[in-house]
């Protein structure tokens, strides 16, 4: 491979890290901070992606099966994606957040799967398995060369990631994040000091969903195509694995985990040789992802960068025993 290819290859990896990083931030808000076990990550992501495409795609021609294509400017799509993802989160969260622990996990998993069935089968909405191709990319016209544009797109994705990171970190250390962490640690105590637990949870859930909408808009712009098979549960698991590797409850950790996981996965694409070997390599990528997760949980269950505690936990040893059964074990150090 030539030098230029290597640069493009790396910028591609960084772009994917940025996009998955946004998803990891969103999940960290929902699980790491608010303690909500959401296995439907791919669902809000898919809704955001289709919202982006349907608002910006040209009106359908006679040859296509879809019936909605608003042909609006791309910036409208970039607003529509988080709004739609947030709305869908609200629809799922309103009934599902009444459930706790693994029941919430199952309900959100099921919601994402039902949604995938809808997107796969309703041709009028999604143009079926053909999907949409040759999607427009933001500011593409300003660049003559596709290579240079790819570097620009990487910078754009990183900028979006950075802004969302700043907003979420700020919320984390403010009253909103504090209240969420309080609920996660002890719901009864949070209730007793007058926190509206249900409302705060829904807020975190919807905000998390909206954040993943930004990732969705970037993702389909980067891929320049959308098909229902892009939204399988593997996306959800990848984000979860990234978060667990990096350390739940810590936004920097979430990004570190994403970088480690995506780099490990993408590097294996480097070795693609013959067609026979390619399928074995694809399979070994799955095995590697599984092994990383098993090994990290076994030997470093709190992730590479664990959550920082600013309260002296030694002073309140009771906190350990009151932690909910399903919430991650917090070792007092």
């Amino acid at each position: 491979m030539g030098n230029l290819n290597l640069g493009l290859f790396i910028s591609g990896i960084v772009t994917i890290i940025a996009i998955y990083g946004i998803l990891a931030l969103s999940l960290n808000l929902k699980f790491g901070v608010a303690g909500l076990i959401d296995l439907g990550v791919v669902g809000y992501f898919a809704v955001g992606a289709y919202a982006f495409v349907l608002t910006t795609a040209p009106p359908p021609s006679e040859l296509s099966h879809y019936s909605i294509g608003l042909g609006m400017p791309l910036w409208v799509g970039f607003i529509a994606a988080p709004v739609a993802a947030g709305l869908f989160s609200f629809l799922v969260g309103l009934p599902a957040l009444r459930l706790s622990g693994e029941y919430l996990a199952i309900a959100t998993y099921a919601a994402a799967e039902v949604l995938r069935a809808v997107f796969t089968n309703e041709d009028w909405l999604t143009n079926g398995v053909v999907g949409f191709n040759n999607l427009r990319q933001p500011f593409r016209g300003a660049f003559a060369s596709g290579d240079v544009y790819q570097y620009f797109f990487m910078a754009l994705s990183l900028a979006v990631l950075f802004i969302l990171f700043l907003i979420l970190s700020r919320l984390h250390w403010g009253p909103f994040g504090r209240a969420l962490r309080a609920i996660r640690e002890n719901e009864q105590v949070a209730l007793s000091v007058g926190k509206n637990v249900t409302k705060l949870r829904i807020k975190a859930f919807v905000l998390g969903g909206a954040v993943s909408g930004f990732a969705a808009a970037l993702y389909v712009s980067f891929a320049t195509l959308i098909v229902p098979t892009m939204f399988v549960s593997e996306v959800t698991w990848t984000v979860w694995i990234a978060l667990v590797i990096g350390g739940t409850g810590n936004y920097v950790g979430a990004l570190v985990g994403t970088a480690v996981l995506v780099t490990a996965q993408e590097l294996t694409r480097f070795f693609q040789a013959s067609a026979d070997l390619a399928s074995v390599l694809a399979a070994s990528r799955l095995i590697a992802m599984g092994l990383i997760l098993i090994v990290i949980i076994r030997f470093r269950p709190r992730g590479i960068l664990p959550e920082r505690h600013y309260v002296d936990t030694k002073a309140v040893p009771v906190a350990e025993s009151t932690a909910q059964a399903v919430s991650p074990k917090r070792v007092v150090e």
Partner: protein
Amino acid sequence: MGEGVPRVQYLQYVVFGLVTGTILLLGTVGFSMIRRVDNFLNIAHGQMVALGAYLGYLFYAMIGLPLVVASVLAIASTAVLGWASHRIVFNPIRGHGPLYLLFTSVGLAYVIHGSLEAIFGTRPKAFILPEPRFFSIAGEPLVSTVEIFIIVVAIVSAVALHLFLTRTRAGMAVRAMSSEYDLARVRGINTSRVAALVWILASGLAGLAGILMGIQGTVYTDMGWAIILVILSAAVLGGLGSIYGVMVGAMLIGLSMDLSVIWLPPAYRSAVAFMVIMLVLVVRPQGIFGGVSRG
């Protein structure tokens, strides 16, 4: 869709539903037993079903052993691998809590899925069986010998499991441990031995479910993920962790999936199962038979 369909065809959907339900039952019972004894959702259980199907394919279609011998070998190997996963992967992190066990099981599911893909390739496989005979009503084929075989095998296994759980000391120990872990331990039940037995049984049943799925349709690498979602639905419907509730849950899910084809496009067949879970979770989260004991 309903208009032009002959009456007998409705009965045929019922037969399909019974086949799906009985296979699902074998997969779900084991999932539920593990949920009770080790208290976590074992996502890798779906891969045990896939493993059974592939091992059955290996012994029967690739090596050429008789179907019964191949099935016994495949079930035994799946059971041993399930037990090994319990010993090597899950037992060391028991103390980490259910969520970390769940994620470890996702990791294991990827390891098994990837291994199956690396060894057998991504192309779907089929058991090549002698042409089945059909029993017809009013000229319409209603049920094939293969379908009767699957239903009978599954029912015999479920009854055998029931007799084991209620009539033998080991079976009673399993039930005692799954309803009151600490009490069972205090009363002198060797909990780690019983847990090992549960994993062997659960994985063996999953292997059997996989072989039956292979006999009925095709064997494909994503089947472990597809089946675990339906297993989750059946388990939630029956009440997570209740052994008998999930048997009924599995039959109901199987029937509703195959009967939904009468009204909905067939592509929504498995989505029906997930819609059932969402409804159940919202209306009655403890499942239709849950509520008395924990879970």
